[in-house]
Each structure stands twice: as structure tokens, then as C-alpha cells.
């Protein structure tokens, strides 16, 4: 049989390129088809006879001086759509010099949210197109938000038709700034903008010289170098068990490493049990191997006889998943039949399928504005934050940190249709065996004795941003008008209640949890509670909000640029960190995740602390949290 002698032929060594999955968003008006057509053409992927046909068709449809119509290169999906043929997500495959691109394209407007979510869930990068003449539109924000909610962590804004605004650098800068500001409030790891003239091909594959002021990469240069795998490999290990293989007396588990690295000899645990064992042997698709990284399928054999079955989650010793039966998450509803809270659906998460019900729709997220809307049911293509209750405890990871294991779908138990898709935000560790005694005197009575409404005013921001200073002034102003208050800050809880906690990520999470519980009790006592904590993680602040209740939780983002904080440095922390004497400092070597939708945003750069405190008081007055005499 003729097999060729590939391996012995040095010239025949196989091309090697990382797979990058790309979502394209933008209307046809923004020039999406032209962009992709131009990309194919400039990469030399268009056949000679197609070029000839293109020149002919272009002459038929356009004036010669406009150049070739590259949108004609696409394979007629738009035409199919006109014939009433359903297209949800269409995939194209393009090779650049260094990468294999899998492009998910979601044409059409019908079912747009659902289709975009499907494309986004399998994509690393989103290409978001805008027309330079029109700038950022509501749909741009919608695309950017949906892509991010379903897992895209890198955004490329293509400012197309830059030729139509005379290759104007200021026009590009304005759009770039607006976009960066919006995307900056979301969970993107990288956001770039590229000025493009798709018709002439500027900055797609080549530079034609018409935007000499632009110093960044072309679209293809960017796609060829973007790093999308390292992060997945360095997270803690997760391996959902797919199946058990028994052969020749051995028992192996089959599965794909979802995140991190699994090595022979590693200690692994099974979520929800105290069982631990070591990896005795790893078989990759091509035989024994010493380790496997995220994305690789393996068979693993263990040192001990352990009882495992499909659906179990294996994890390494660090950063274990939470094992719980309730969680908070975001849900996209994809069925024409409304989502009914408390109705039983099936939840498929990892390799596990269990009954689930939605216990509460916390709020719908308006995909155009990001606003929260109170709802009692959910309709087709609506996205909401909900609480979920599963029939048995399951392994839970937050989607932010573990996108591979923190996602799920919902299945209708009668039709078997996939009716929802969502992401885990955090587990709800509700104490299930404690039945609180109902006291006769409740929060409302306690508060009314003080003539006030209890609220929790939660200040968050970088170290040195001014949280405590402003919080202090707010408390003074409230005290001056006879309000009953309490201020919780790092200094008064870390010295006592939280003395046992350090500054690692886990300890910070616990620190916030306890502070939130404390604030809840004080609010229950009828007090106006002021919390001033860095509280760097969005998920934890969300959990505090969840605990205290949306109506009583007021998030105040003290928005001070890090340069200003560093200059102020009231506690000398930045100086210490710079000298290397302080590790785990937020803003230096620990991230600070700015709030997406704080009730109040205080920009401190141009106002006095007193003015800012007044801003908070004014908000409380509008909320009728305090009725000042």
C-alpha cells in the first residue's frame, strides 16, 4: 500500500499551528463579509478561477472604481438565509502562517443572542466590527457583553471603513477609547482596536501605508501571536470522569483534562469525598506519557482501588472545587416556552447530569444597557442571574476562574430539548440543618424604633483610594442627623474577628464573607452599616450582595487611579511593596476587579472627600434610606 515516506522527508515535516477559535460579531453593514473575504484573499486562499469569477461578478454589481467586492467570496450563507434556510452558527476554517483559525460566524438577527452565545462558548477571541463612520452602537455593546458572558476573554475591535473617515487617527482614537471604557468594565483579559479598511485590505493581512500613525499589529499578526492557552494550563487541575474502562484486569478512567496539568505521581482527590489517591499511569492517545495538560484526552490509572464513575470530578490538592447543592449563576433561556422557577429540569455540567430547579430569578440582565430588571419568569433569548438548586450536591467551579468546568446546559425533561445554557458564579453555602428561630422582634421593628431603614453601604476600591476616609465622613454626617450607624473596616475586623486570616486569595475571600455576614447581622439589628474594604473580587462582592439582599446593598466604587493611590499611600503600603517587603498586595501582584454596575461610582481625582461623602448622602436620601429632617 502506498503510504508515502513523510517522516523521512525533511521537506515534508508537517505544518504546526495552534488552534485559535474566533467569533465574528457585527452586522453585514459594518463590512463583516468584506473583512472575511479580504482575509481569505490576502492570505492567498482564494482559487484563481474564483478570482476571475469575482472580477466578473464585481463588474456586474458595482462600479469598477470601487474595487473588487470581497463579500462575494463568501459561500452564499446570506443567500441561503434569504431562501428561508436556518443558519445558526456557520464555521469556517482558515490557516494563517502560524495558526489554524476556527471562525464561528453568526449571521442573521433571528435568535441572535442564542446563536452568539453558542459561537462565543467555543471561541477564544471575538472580532467585533464597527463602522468608523458610526462608532460604537448599542449592538456593539450587546455583542461585546454576550461574547464575554459566554466565555470569550479577548476582544478585537475592528474599526472598519477607516477610509471613509479619511484615515483619521482622532476618529479611531475616540472609538477606541469608548470601547476600551465599556469593555474594561467586563471580564476581558485583553482588548485591542485595529483601524481597518477592508476594501483595500489595510491592517488585515498587510499594511498599505494609509494609516501610518497606527503602530499596532495587523489583524493576522495579532491572531498569530495572541496567547490563549497558557492560562488554562496553569490553573488548578480538573478532570471530569467521562467513563470507566475495564480491560485486562485494570480499571482506568477516561476523560479530558479540563484545566491545569496532571502528572504521574500526582495526588488527586474526588470532589465531595475525602478519598485521595495517586496517579499510577497515564495513557495519552499515543501511549504512556508522564503528564497531560488542559485539553488533552487521557486514560488514568490510580495507585489505589477507588470507586469512580462517570460524572465524578477529579481535582488536584490546590484550589478544590466547592461541593454544594445550591449555586448562583447566569442563565440564557433558549426555549419559546418560558422558564418556570421551581420547575424541574436536567442540568448537564461537566460529564454529570442531575435534576435542577431555579429557586429564584434575581434579575434579568439587559444586554443593551447592562441594567438589572426584576423578573418573575424568563422568555426566549433573555439572560438572567438566578439561584439554582440541584437534587444532589455537585462539584462547582466559578466560570470566571474555571471556564471549562463552570458552565452548564439545561435540558427539558419532557422534550429533551436544550432549553438553557449558563455559567456558575458561586456556590451558595447555605446551612441546611439550621432552622432559624423566628423571633418576635424583627429587623423592621428594630429599625423603625430608630426611625430609619437599614442598609449596607459597601465601599470598594484599591488600597489608598479613600474608602475609609469617605466612609468615615459619611458616618459623621449620618450621626449628625441622628442616624444609628456602624462602620466595619479592615482595621477593626482584621484585629479580632479575622485575626486568623492572611492575604492569600482564599483568606481574602473568607475575610469578605465574614465581613458580609457581620454587616448582615448589624443591618438586621436595624443599623445603617458602612463597610470599607478593598474587597477586590467581583464574585465576593456579589456574594455579599446576595447575602444581604439586592435592595439593601449599596455598592460604592471608590474609583481612584492607581497612580493617585500610590502617590497618596496613606499607610506606606505601596512603598513597602515596591521595596519587595509586602506580597499579595491588591493592585501590585493581586488583581483588583472593578465593579461592573456599582450603585455609586465616586471619582476622587477632582473632588474633595467631603463632596464625595455628600454624594453618598444624597443617594441615600433619594433611596429614602434616610429621611433627613
Amino acid at each position, binding site marked *: 500500500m502506498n503510504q508515502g515516506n513523510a517522516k523521512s522527508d525533511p521537506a515534508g515535516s*508537517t505544518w504546526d499551528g495552534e488552534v485559535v477559535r474566533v467569533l465574528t460579531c457585527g452586522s453585514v453593514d459594518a463590512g463583516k463579509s468584506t473583512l472575511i473575504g479580504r482575509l481569505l484573499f490576502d492570505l492567498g486562499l482564494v*482559487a484563481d478561477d474564483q478570482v476571475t469569477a469575482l472580477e466578473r461578478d464585481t463588474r456586474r454589481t458595482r462600479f469598477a472604481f470601487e474595487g473588487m467586492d470581497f463579500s462575494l467570496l463568501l459561500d452564499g450563507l446570506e443567500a441561503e438565509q434569504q431562501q428561508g434556510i436556518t443558519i445558526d452558527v456557520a464555521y469556517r476554517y482558515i490557516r494563517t502562517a502560524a495558526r489554524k483559525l476556527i471562525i464561528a460566524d453568526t449571521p442573521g438577527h433571528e435568535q441572535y443572542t442564542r446563536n452568539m452565545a453558542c459561537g462565543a462558548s467555543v471561541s477564544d477571541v471575538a472580532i467585533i466590527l464597527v463602522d468608523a463612520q458610526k462608532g460604537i452602537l448599542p449592538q456593539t455593546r450587546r455583542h461585546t457583553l454576550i461574547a464575554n458572558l*459566554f466565555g470569550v476573554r479577548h476582544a478585537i475591535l475592528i474599526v472598519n471603513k477607516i477610509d471613509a473617515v479619511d484615515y483619521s487617527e482622532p476618529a479611531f482614537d475616540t472609538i477606541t477609547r469608548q470601547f476600551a471604557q465599556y469593555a474594561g468594565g467586563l471580564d476581558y483579559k485583553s482588548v485591542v482596536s485595529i483601524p481597518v479598511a477592508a476594501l483595500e485590505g489595510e491592517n488585515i493581512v498587510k499594511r498599505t501605508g494609509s494609516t501610518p500613525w497606527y503602530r499596532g499589529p495587523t489583524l493576522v499578526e495579532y491572531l498569530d501571536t495572541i496567547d490563549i492557552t497558557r492560562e488554562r494550563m496553569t490553573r488548578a487541575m480538573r478532570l471530569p470522569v467521562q467513563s470507566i474502562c475495564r480491560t485486562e484486569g485494570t480499571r482506568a478512567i*477516561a476523560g479530558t483534562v479540563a484545566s491545569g496539568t496532571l502528572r504521574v505521581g500526582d495526588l488527586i482527590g474526588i470532589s465531595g469525598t475525602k478519598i485521595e489517591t495517586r496517579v499510577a499511569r497515564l495513557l495519552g492517545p499515543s*501511549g504512556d506519557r508522564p503528564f497531560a495538560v488542559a485539553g488533552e484526552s487521557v486514560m488514568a490509572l490510580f495507585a489505589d482501588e477507588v470507586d469512580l464513575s462517570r460524572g465524578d470530578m477529579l481535582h488536584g490538592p490546590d484550589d478544590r472545587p466547592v461541593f454544594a447543592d445550591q449555586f448562583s449563576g447566569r442563565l440564557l433561556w433558549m426555549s419559546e416556552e418560558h422558564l418556570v422557577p421551581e420547575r424541574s429540569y436536567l442540568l448537564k*455540567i461537566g460529564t454529570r447530569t442531575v435534576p435542577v430547579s431555579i429557586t429564584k430569578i434575581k434579575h434579568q440582565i439587559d444586554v443593551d444597557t447592562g441594567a438589572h430588571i426584576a423578573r418573575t419568569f424568563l422568555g426566549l433569548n433573555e439572560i438572567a442571574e438566578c439561584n439554582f438548586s440541584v437534587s444532589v450536591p455537585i462539584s462547582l467551579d466559578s466560570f470566571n476562574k474555571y471556564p471549562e468546568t463552570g458552565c452548564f446546559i439545561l435540558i427539558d425533561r419532557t422534550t*429533551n430539548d436544550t432549553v438553557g445554557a449558563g455559567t456558575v458564579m458561586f456556590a451558595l453555602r447555605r446551612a441546611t440543618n439550621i432552622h432559624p428561630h423566628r423571633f418576635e422582634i424583627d429587623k423592621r421593628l428594630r429599625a423603625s424604633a430608630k426611625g430609619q431603614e437599614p442598609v449596607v453601604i459597601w465601599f470598594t476600591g484599591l488600597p489608598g483610594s479613600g474608602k475609609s476616609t469617605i466612609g468615615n465622613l459619611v458616618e459623621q454626617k449620618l450621626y449628625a442627623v441622628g442616624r444609628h450607624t456602624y462602620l466595619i473596616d479592615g482595621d477593626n475586623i482584621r484585629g479580632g474577628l479575622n485575626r486568623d486570616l492572611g492575604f492569600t486569595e482564599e483568606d481574602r475571600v473568607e475575610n469578605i464573607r465574614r465581613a458580609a455576614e457581620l454587616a448582615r447581622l448589624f443591618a438586621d439589628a436595624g443599623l445603617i452599616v458602612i463597610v470599607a474594604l478593598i474587597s477586590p473580587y467581583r464574585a465576593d462582592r456579589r456574594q455579599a450582595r446576595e447575602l444581604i439582599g439586592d435592595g439593601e446593598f449599596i455598592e460604592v466604587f471608590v474609583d481612584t487611579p492607581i497612580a493617585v493611590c500610590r502617590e497618596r499611600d496613606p499607610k506606606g503600603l505601596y512603598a513597602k511593596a515596591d521595596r519587595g517587603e509586602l506580597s499579595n498586595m491588591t493592585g501590585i501582584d493581586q488583581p483588583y476587579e472593578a465593579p461592573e454596575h456599582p450603585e455609586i461610582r465616586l471619582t476622587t481625582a477632582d473632588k474633595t472627600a467631603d463632596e464625595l461623602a455628600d454624594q453618598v448622602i444624597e443617594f441615600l436620601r433619594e433611596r429614602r434610606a434616610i429621611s433627613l429632617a
Partner: protein
Amino acid sequence: MSQKLPSHLAALESEAIFILRETAAELSKPVLLYSIGKDSSVLLHLALKAFFPAQPPFPLLHVDTNWKFREMISFRDDTARRLDLELLVYTNRDGLDRGINPFDSGSSLHTQIMKTEALKQSLRLHGFDAAIGGARRDEERSRAKERIFSLRSAEQGWDPRRQRPELWSLYNCRLQTGESLRVFPLSNWTELDVWEYIRCEDIPVVPLYFAKARPVIERDGMLIMVDDDRIRLRPDEQIVSRSVRFRTLGCYPLTGAVESSATTVDDIIVELSASRQSERAARAIDNDEIASMERKKRDGYF
């Protein structure tokens, strides 16, 4: 242990293995549709790897139209014997009895009866609830939007409106009585990926893929190989010897050869990289009419 795969092939391989294992874990009676071509060869290779050291937990099924190239049939039987796999071969007896053939019945009816109908009959006969196939999204335009797990009704029809949204790698494999799934582990592979994988993994393929002097006739703009004496020459047709190979394999009277001098996998990869023709251009059945594949799929074609 073979040498390390290029990263795109390693990623595609892992994805396909995950899909195969998911199918075996969630469905009660899957089958691998083995059509003998290069994609089936890759699919079978992946199935062997996915369950190694155990054998794949499903049999192979070949729907034989009775018009496949002879070399395909001998390759098929050798492969099943060499790997010690269960191979089911199904032919639509009723179609044969009615004398359906590509010449008198036309390509469209022949395909409908001997392929589409035969496939449905065989799946029903054995009660398979999932048929794993080697179709790729880059093959043809209407495949670009196909799901990896594609739902078929109890009548085995494909209703575009009932296809389930697919997010992440969370495939919904739940079925109601009579429904079945078609599963496509090679969805994200291109023709070039397939050949590169064949090269890296040394996967045997039918020799018809490699150029050789073969007896051909020119018919309706295609080069048709004279594989046996059923060809029925038209008065103006002459059998000539040309150096040809096949990019896809099907029923020999319906499968056009391409002129080529590619005699090795390396040559094919070089040829493909410079290729100016789409892969299925030489398949008569796709050129019937616009959106023909879409219509065939609704009828239950693979």
C-alpha cells in the same frame, strides 16, 4: 509512542476522542458508519485510540450500494480482519431487486434508494441510536452549520428547526423513543488536516487516493474510472489510461478522478496546499442543484 503531533492535530484529535467517548457513554447502541474513505480511516483510527487498550464499544457499519470501487471493498475487509473488528455490511436488497443502478436510475435516485434509504433501513434493523460519521464542516456549504451531535426524528429526518444549540463541549445526547443522533467527531477538521494526520499517524488508506495510470473515460466533464465491465460505454467514449487519483471515494460511476502525479501522502499534501478546486467538485451528486445537500439531509442522507 509515535512522535509528538503538531498542536492543531493534537487539539483536533483530543476533541474527536472526547466526542467518541461521550457518544459511547451516553448512548445505548452506537455504530460507526464506515464508508472506507480517508475520513473513515481517520475516524476508525481515533476510535481505536479513544478506547485503547479496550476495543471500540461499537461495531462498524458499511452501507454497500453494490457500486463501490473493488479496491474499496478489499480494503474494507482487510481492515476489519486486521483490527479484529465487528463489521456489518448492509445492502438495500429491495433496491437491488428493483434494478436500481446509477446509469438507468440516475445519480439522484440511485443515491436516494441505495444510500439514504439503505442507511435508514440498516439503522432501524439494528436499533442503533447513534451513527458516528466522518463528515466535516469544510466539505460542503450546508455542512458548515451542522451540529456535532445532529438530531434525527423517528423517521430519521433532519429538521433544522429542532437542532439543539451546542455550547462548550456539553452535548445533549438525550433522545425520545425512535429518535437518533448522527455524530460527527471530525466536524472541525479540514481535508488538509485529515491528510496531515494520516501522514503523522501512518494510517492506511485505500490506494485509489494515490495517482497511478488507470483506465478512465471522460463523461459529462468528469473522469470516470472503468472499475468493472458494468460501465456501459457510450458510442463516442474511449477508454484511455491517465495518471489519476481520487479526492473522495464513492460509487465508481459517480466519482470523478482528478489528474494528478501525487503518489505519496507528501505529494497529496503539497498538491492540496496549492489546490484550486474544492474537494467535492468531482462528486456528481452534489452538483444536482443548489442547496441539494440541504434537501438530501432533510430526507435522511448522511
